């Protein structure tokens, strides 16, 4: 049995390693100083999809990403690791979307894609940490959801069995297909790039990237369909303009502030026996310890 799997992936700024140069002098974020990366938990989701593909020949794994045209980078990265194809949902009118408008837009793209058995995605993206888009897509498509997935234990044409990692334990669920599964960072790491796949897909290009290529390379893409990464617009996926982007977002950002902590008057304790013993005595005397 083979399956058609959609993996939702997002290109995100690497907020985990925010260095001193990440903030500009005026206190705003210097996005240029943050590299754009494959959202880590989406890679965990990709691995789960590829394991199903390994075990079920004929399975296809398609990456769906919404973002700027450069998000085609995550699709190529996924192709190097084992994905078959990808779609970039990109349109100016999709910008400024909150999670609800984002999930609506992605759900429209999933509908346009049509024939799918399973939708996988990371639990959350590191730029927002909301974990909302997965369940919201499930609701918009009228599908069941399994969140916090750690391992897909079994899949058959009717249903999928998934182990979930919760705060205080483990739960195993069986859900009917199609459904949406969001995968935790505690799941298996994604396999690395495969050298042969790298050769095969290195010239893969999105519609707008293709337009900038030499005639020779364009001809190559015309000849090899699998190298083409289509870009879908809001109109193409028949999205209601009222429900996308900023107008379609019920939440509005009222204010953004930089985080400033009130500095305390610190006392320096020299790293020598005498002063460290004094510190301990003081903490014992005021009942902080002991």
């Amino acid at each position, binding site marked *: 049995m083979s399956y058609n799997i959609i993996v939702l992936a997002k290109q995100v*700024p690497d*907020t*985990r390693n*925010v260095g001193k140069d990440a903030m500009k002098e005026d206190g705003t*974020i210097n996005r240029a100083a943050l590299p754009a990366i494959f959202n880590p938990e989406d890679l965990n989701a990709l691995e789960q999809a590829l394991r199903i593909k390994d075990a079920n020949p004929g399975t296809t794994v398609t990456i769906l990403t919404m973002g700027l045209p450069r998000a085609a980078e995550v699709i190529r990265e996924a192709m190097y690791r084992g994905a078959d194809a990808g779609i970039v949902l990109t349109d100016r009118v999709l910008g400024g979307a909150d*999670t*609800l408008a984002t*999930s609506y837009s992605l759900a429209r793209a999933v509908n346009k894609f049509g024939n799918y058995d399973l939708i996988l995605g990371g639990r959350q993206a590191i*730029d*927002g*940490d*909301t974990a*909302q*888009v997965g369940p*919201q897509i499930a*609701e918009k498509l009228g599908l*069941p*959801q*399994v*969140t*916090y997935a750690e391992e897909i234990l079994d899949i058959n044409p009717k249903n999928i069995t998934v182990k*979930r990692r919760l*705060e*205080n*334990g*483990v*739960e*195993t*669920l069986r*859900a009917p297909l199609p*459904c949406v599964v969001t995968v935790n960072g505690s799941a298996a790491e994604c396999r690395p790039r495969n050298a042969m796949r790298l050769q095969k897909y290195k010239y893969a290009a999105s519609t707008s990237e293709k337009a900038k290529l030499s005639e020779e390379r364009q001809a190559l893409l015309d000849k090899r369909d699998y190298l083409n990464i289509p870009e879908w617009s809001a109109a193409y996926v028949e999205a209601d303009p009222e429900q996308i982007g900023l107008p379609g*977002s*019920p*939440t*509005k*950002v*009222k204010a*953004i*502030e*930089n*985080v400033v*902590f*009130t*500095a*305390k008057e*610190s006392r*320096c*304790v*020299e*790293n020598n*026996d005498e002063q*460290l*013993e004094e*510190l*301990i005595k003081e*903490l*014992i005397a005021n009942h*902080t*310890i*002991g």
Partner: protein
Amino acid sequence: MTDNNNLIVYCEFDEGHVADVSLELLTKGRQLATKLGVKLEAIVIGDNLEGIENQLFPYGVDTVYKVADKRLYPYTSNPHSAVLINLFREIKPQICLMGATCIGRDLGPRVSSCLHSGLTADCTALEIGDHKDPKTGKEYTDLLYQIRPAFGGNIVATIVNPDCRPQMATVREGVMKKEIFDPEHKGTVVELDASKYVKPEDFAVEIIDRHIEKSKTNIKGAPIIVAGGYGMGSRENFDLLYQLAETLGGEVGASRAAVDAGFCEHDRQIGQTGVTVRPKLYIACGISGQIQHIAGMQESSIIISINNDPDAPINTIADFVITGNVEDVVPKLIKYYKKNSK
């Protein structure tokens, strides 16, 4: 029963006890409801709910909705979503709060998607205030300000939902304080018939197995925390922190960077994406002090920072700064504690 425009908290419970995070939200919810002049309501969905209201009333709850059905425990997404969606269409709350737990973060988005109401995840503060739309100039009064860190904790955003109801927000455990409102406070109980809210097809997902592992660590309640950062260098070096914690009668915590590097387990992570703590004493070892970490420990009574770098950002919020190697300093602290304590 159609009492509209109130503030409702979705309450989680296990083994007959309402979860701390829910009681924390009721405490905050009581303050917000009083400010708005509306009722504080709570909803509990599950099985064996007899008397559960007695745990909720002291927090100032005016109405407890109980939906009992053996199929509603343990939690599954669709049935609990269906109850909230259908009930909210009836009672039209203006605000709904839930814990940013595995349950709340699974349930909240599904409900908000169906009702097209905005949801803000992992809020660190909730306030009531006014808003003027910068484009249309339309003015709104008494909106819920949903304040949350964004962009890896480097900025704090205030989010509002001007037009959609309910205004929904999730909050992590430990972020709000739990406080009894009035031990004698009494409200009313409304028992709802599950079959009016949930359809049989909502039970399509089946729980095959469930292992509850009680959390081995209790860093949230520990009076003393010895926390290590990326500067500890290795998992082995964390042993020193366990020794100090054991000597002082505390727990070991870690920064996100140390957890990501594999030096320490995830359930010990302190910060915006981990646990928020307020111990009597916080000893930060080799922690530089990224904003997202500081946000989770800045309310500690006394903070000691041990770091090689005299300019580590965490030093600005520390009461005592020890510049030096953790490997040098910690054994001395252990030695002098043993010498001076009785």
